[in-house]
């Protein structure tokens, strides 16, 4: 059998693959635990574990001392906590985009990367959730006013507030993403159950697979539910980041109350998320020899989406400037100067770094060579990741420092605890990702088999067509 390169110079699955070679490449990463006893697994998770300890120390000190250990104070009531919240939740959005929106659009290349990015979504939302929860100072008390929980005070949350919308949006998003992820894992757990020879492994995966046996009748209902969940997740992901942007856009703070915020935030989220998928997929692909299943074509297409969403974000920045100018009020003009005057304003470097990282560097992806080179993929993704963090920094604390009443405007400086908490969540995220790679199949086994089957069918029809054109080409 010839390989798929005949049909497409850059196919989605490389080499001569059968269903069992796919199992060997993906499922056996989990089954053969010895494959992880190497530096490649222990080094990242070791560093991540240290950072998780930094997080725990920070959270401990925060709960003991109160949120005064952070740098934010009136007028800058929101700073690192909300910057990091929006940054993390944005990173999570690529997972839902890949698993749901690309499924609805029948983009089959998603099959090789959706599991990985869905896991990323879940862990990123966990990291995101920590910030607003801890910003309440005492999360166990916050329960009364975050959720409509009947309590002896007889009061309820105020549902006209975007912050309440946020609570519902993020918790719904987390729940639905988790369920969607688990549903996708059930058939793969069955594969792991049937492949493993270790008794305990078999028990655990059998338990998790719910006794899945691949019955056609089960697949029938499974696919209906899966497709409809994708259909629900699509508006959900758009609504979540729109609602996150409402936290700002519904207020009257200069630099926040702009109608372009919802689409601009959603595009920014996808932008940052795809950059993160590229950034994490490259080492994982190398470490576990997944080059045949996650190919350069995947990176090429992810880079294209990054570029496209980057351009939407650039449009958002332009509109921010336009609104600032067109508003015609003193405070809006002051805000523009505050952000952009490189020689006089203290944080303007953040604005220009953001333009460099988010608009200028990603333009490299117009070049096909850059889209398919590890160096450029990593460079641009890192740049976007930093740039998107700076974007939220420019929008959130930098808008708050400048108030309507000049006498109350104050500089904001983050403290060491702001940084340690942020770095700690990065450690938490990496630790969860690396545990995921070790104990769950990082690539969707049954969907890659489905993709392989479709490629077989495609190749066969292509051959038949070729035969038909050569034999019928005389008239």
């Amino acid at each position: 059998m010839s390989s798929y390169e005949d049909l497409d110079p850059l196919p989605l699955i490389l080499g001569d693959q059968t269903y069992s070679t796919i199992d060997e490449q993906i499922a056996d990463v989990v089954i053969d635990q010895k494959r992880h006893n190497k530096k490649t697994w222990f080094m990242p998770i070791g560093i991540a574990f240290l950072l998780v300890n930094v997080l725990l120390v920070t959270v401990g000190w925060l709960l003991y001392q109160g949120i005064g250990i952070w740098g934010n104070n009136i007028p800058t009531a929101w700073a690192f906590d909300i910057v990091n919240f929006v940054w993390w939740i944005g990173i999570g959005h690529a997972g839902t985009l890949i698993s749901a929106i690309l499924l609805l659009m029948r983009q089959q290349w998603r099959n090789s990367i959706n599991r990985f990015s869905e896991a990323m979504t879940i862990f990123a939302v966990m990291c995101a959730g920590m910030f607003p929860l801890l910003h309440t100072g005492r999360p166990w008390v916050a329960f009364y006013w975050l959720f409509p929980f009947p309590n002896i005070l007889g009061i309820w949350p105020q549902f006209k507030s975007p912050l309440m919308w946020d609570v519902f949006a993020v918790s719904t998003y987390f729940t639905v993403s988790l369920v969607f992820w688990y549903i996708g894992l059930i058939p793969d757990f069955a594969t792991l159950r049937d492949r493993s020879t270790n008794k305990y492994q078999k028990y655990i995966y059998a338990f998790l697979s719910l006794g899945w046996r691949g019955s056609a009748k089960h697949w029938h209902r499974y696919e209906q539910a899966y497709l409809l969940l994708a259909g629900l997740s699509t508006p959900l992901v758009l609504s979540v980041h729109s609602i996150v942007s409402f936290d700002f856009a519904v207020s009257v703070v200069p630099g926040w109350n702009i109608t372009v915020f919802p689409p601009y935030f959603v595009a920014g989220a996808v932008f940052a998320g795809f950059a993160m998928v590229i950034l994490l997929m490259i080492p994982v692909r190398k470490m576990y020899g997944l080059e045949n299943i996650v190919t350069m074509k995947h990176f090429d297409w992810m880079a294209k989406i990054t570029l496209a969403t980057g351009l939407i974000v650039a449009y958002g920045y332009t509109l921010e400037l336009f609104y600032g100018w067109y508003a015609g009020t003193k405070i809006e003009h002051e805000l523009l100067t505050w952000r952009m005057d490189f020689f006089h304003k203290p944080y303007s470097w953040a604005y220009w770094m953001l333009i460099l990282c988010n608009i200028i560097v990603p333009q490299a992806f117009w070049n096909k060579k850059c889209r398919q080179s590890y160096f450029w993929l990593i460079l641009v993704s890192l740049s976007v990741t930093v740039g998107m963090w700076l974007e939220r920094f420019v929008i959130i604390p930098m808008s708050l420092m400048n108030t309507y009443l000049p006498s109350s405007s104050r500089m904001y400086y983050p403290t060491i605890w702001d940084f340690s908490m942020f770095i700690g969540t990065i450690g938490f995220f990496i630790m969860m990702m690396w545990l995921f790679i070790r104990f769950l199949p990082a690539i969707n086994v049954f969907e890659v088999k489905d993709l392989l089957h479709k490629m077989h069918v495609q190749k066969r029809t292509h051959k038949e067509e070729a035969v038909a054109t050569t034999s019928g080409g005389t008239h």
Partner: protein
Amino acid sequence: MAKARYYGIAAQFESPDDLMAAVRRSREAGYSRMDAYTPFPIHGLTDEMRFRDERVPLFMFLGGLIGAISGFFLQTYTNAWDYPFNVGGKPLIGYPAWVPITFECTILFSALTGVLSMIIMNGLPQPYDPMFNIPSFARASQDRFFLCIEARDPNFSPTEVTTFLETLNPLTVEAVPR
């Protein structure tokens, strides 16, 4: 021969196409109680088996409807009836501000109903199934495709079904004990 000793007769195939052809021929031969077992969903297989179940989408729709109503009711009850709360002079039932939470509740209820109804109607979790009795069935989740003609089929007779399945180009044909 007592039917009850068997769950059915299962044939193992190497490719989805063989399985699809086998299902078609079994149906043409008059068998109606059968199921196929595959490592990944194969489109058209249930159509070929004349199996159709549209209840999951229906339940998801109803779940969404209940979610929308409860989301809206939750906000109306808490902020307008139980503890009327004046926010900036806005109307008590300020429904435009309630769209986001109503929407999120719709999605949440619909998604959870969908997942639960799929799992429950599939009879999961189910640790034991007669199909697991045949040793080669472990490959149904890996790279083999199974067709089982069940004993509850009115035309079932172990010998006839075995001979019939052997004409379909299978890798193996095995009786599935109960």
